[in-house]
């Protein structure tokens, strides 16, 4: 049986919207084709997760957002995240549109592009067209198709050849109007031998049901290095479905740092396609589930190139009645000799009602490779609690030490101090209630 996708918008309205935004014809066509696909395609198939029972239809409609005259006017819900960012490179999206963009002049002078994607399609159309929807394909499933049809606001980051950027570029994406569609698309292109760190935060401030349908595409050129850090802290009423993909050329490196700190149902899929020889990927995912959250986190590494190492680590703490399915998929294609795919998924459950499933999957079509996986699901070890208590530490403090200790080996590896501290405090907030 197929379920009919409910389209949140019809073709005529979508076409009008695209035109009134002054989008180029190729983009309008792309949106309309994607909408057609959406009508035909099914929801993504998620391991042991009935996403069809989730609230994934609350798109709302496109609503124009009013740009900020200055950063100090930003909504109160995100002020902590943009503190001291007056001189930094920062993009803020509020609901359907970007309201603030700043690129540090020294980066602009080097040819770096950092703007909202809707502006980029007009000003850098050819460049955007070459990459847009080439990593997350609209024909994968109805959510990807709807994303391609409806995306709004978004971030376009282009780093020219040989440009090395030390300071992270940042984006904050806020949904605080349930009637406004929140479908940001992040597109990062790092040209040959460039290096960049990008950090974003997804925040909500509303009580009504909503949806974030997000896609992230990262193209890592030969010898380039991209560090992509993302923290999702959307509220209980926002369902989050996010697909992240990186395509990595020869000797390029992608590093993912993902903080899954939402309060609502979340499905995320973070995948590195190691296309070039010598390309590499490192993914770290930290997650805390609470309440009655349904969570499905997937990390993937697909090896095409020779001599390609990948490492994926997910550590998740589940409390209350939170339920998580954690998948790791390492796929090594024929010809990817001397690839090395490693993955670890660990879940710590804090209550009898919490649920965690770790599914490590290795799919290997080449003989000359190394690969490994480790997965564990467990509760706080009572021997450990006893040991700590035997030194005078209270049960509560002992459990807290063990829980933070479970995440610490990954958190401590996060190379950005600010992000590390932010994640630490988000973990404390989610666990401390």
């Amino acid at each position, binding site marked *: 049986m197929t379920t009919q996708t409910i389209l949140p918008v019809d073709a005529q309205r979508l076409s009008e919207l695209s035109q009134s935004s002054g989008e180029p014809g190729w983009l309008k066509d792309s949106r309309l084709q994607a909408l057609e696909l959406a009508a035909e395609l099914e929801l993504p198939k998620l391991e042991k997760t009935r996403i069809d029972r989730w609230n994934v239809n609350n798109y709302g409609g496109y609503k124009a957002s009013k740009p900020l005259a200055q950063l100090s006017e930003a909504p109160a819900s995100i002020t902590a995240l943009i503190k001291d960012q007056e001189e930094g490179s920062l993009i803020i999206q509020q609901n359907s549109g970007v309201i603030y963009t700043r690129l540090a002049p020294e980066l602009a002078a080097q040819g770096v592009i950092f703007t909202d994607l809707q502006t980029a399609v007009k000003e850098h159309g050819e460049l955007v067209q070459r990459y847009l929807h080439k990593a997350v394909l609209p024909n994968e499933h109805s959510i990807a198709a709807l994303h391609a049809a409806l995306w709004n606001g978004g971030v376009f980051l282009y780093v020219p050849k040989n440009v090395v950027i030390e300071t992270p570029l940042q984006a904050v994406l806020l949904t605080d109007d349930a009637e406004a569609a929140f479908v940001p698309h992040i597109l990062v292109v790092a040209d040959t031998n460039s290096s960049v760190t990008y950090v974003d935060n997804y925040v909500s401030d509303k009580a009504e049901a909503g949806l974030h349908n997000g896609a992230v595409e990262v193209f890592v050129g030969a010898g380039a290095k991209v560090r992509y850090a993302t923290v999702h802290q959307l509220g209980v009423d926002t369902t989050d479905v996010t697909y992240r993909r990186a395509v990595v050329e020869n000797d390029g490196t992608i590093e993912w740092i993902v903080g899954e700190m939402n309060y609502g149902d979340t499905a995320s899929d973070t995948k590195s396609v190691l296309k070039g020889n010598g390309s590499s990927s490192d993914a770290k995912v930290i997650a805390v589930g609470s309440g009655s959250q349904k969570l499905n986190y997937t990390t993937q590494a697909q090896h095409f190139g020779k001599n390609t190492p990948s490492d994926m680590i997910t550590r998740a703490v589940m409390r209350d009645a939170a339920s998580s399915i954690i998948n790791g998929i390492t796929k090594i294609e024929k010809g990817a000799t001397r690839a090395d795919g490693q993955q670890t998924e660990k879940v710590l459950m804090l209550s009898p009602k919490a649920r965690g499933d770790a599914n490590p999957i290795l799919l290997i079509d080449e003989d000359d490779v190394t690969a490994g996986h480790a997965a564990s699901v467990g509760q706080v070890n*009572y021997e450990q609690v006893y040991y700590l208590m*035997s030194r*005078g*530490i209270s049960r509560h*403090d002992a459990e807290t*030490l*063990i829980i933070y*200790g479970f995440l*610490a*080996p990954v958190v401590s590896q996060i190379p950005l101090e600010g992000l590390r501290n932010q994640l630490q405090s988000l973990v404390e907030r989610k666990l401390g209630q």
Partner: protein
Amino acid sequence: MAADFVIEGLKATIEGKEILKGINLQMKGGEIHAIMGPNGTGKSTLASALMGHPKYEVTAGTAVLEGEDLLEMAVDERARAGLFLAMQYPSEISGVTNSDFLRSAINSRREEGSEISLIRFIRQMEAKMKELEMNPEFLHRYLNEGFSGGEKKRNEILQMMMLDPKIVILDEIDSGLDIDALKIVAEGVNSMRSPERGFLVITHYQRLLNYIKPDFVHVMMQGRIVKSGGPELAERLEAEGYEWVKEELGIEDETVGQEA
């Protein structure tokens, strides 16, 4: 005040099976008592039951330290009341550094607002680690994770030195130690001897007692203390083994579950 510790009629079971069948023992501050006996006679159970390991159920008896019955308390309260158990198999806890752990343990004994300062703590810990010939990097290592058997034992003694307990139980602290490590551990223990502190040393080798001289020696069999004496008892056990004790008492099988 000298730490008087009195165990009376202690019985304990594991999964319904009685292991301790009525232990009586009196210790005064400054004394070192050794508990010896072959494997399987309940020695380690005694240590675990006193500390409050969740697997053991105490079914009768008291263990009174300075007027308070430890057996009425939760594990952490027993520790704060002054009991310390150096464990035979300390847990490994990933992600919790040795220093964070020990600071939490010290601060659990202090009022909120009067926590030990980081500098003072580090200085103390480094000094003690030096005495135990421990590499200072162990401060920042995750608790017991990847430690060798000997390193774990030194780490137990380090904790004892930092926490300044009134009653110390050493459970097979000598197992897995080579002679040099044994000497260092014993020196650590001896440096802590004081009229305010009592030690209960559990071992089945007399070897350890060459370095930590006991005042009293008790032999455990079948979940009871069956014989007590002075240091000369340990020496005789070392020379002659346990057979003569069994013969004297008419015991055929000394392990728990076998009745005389």
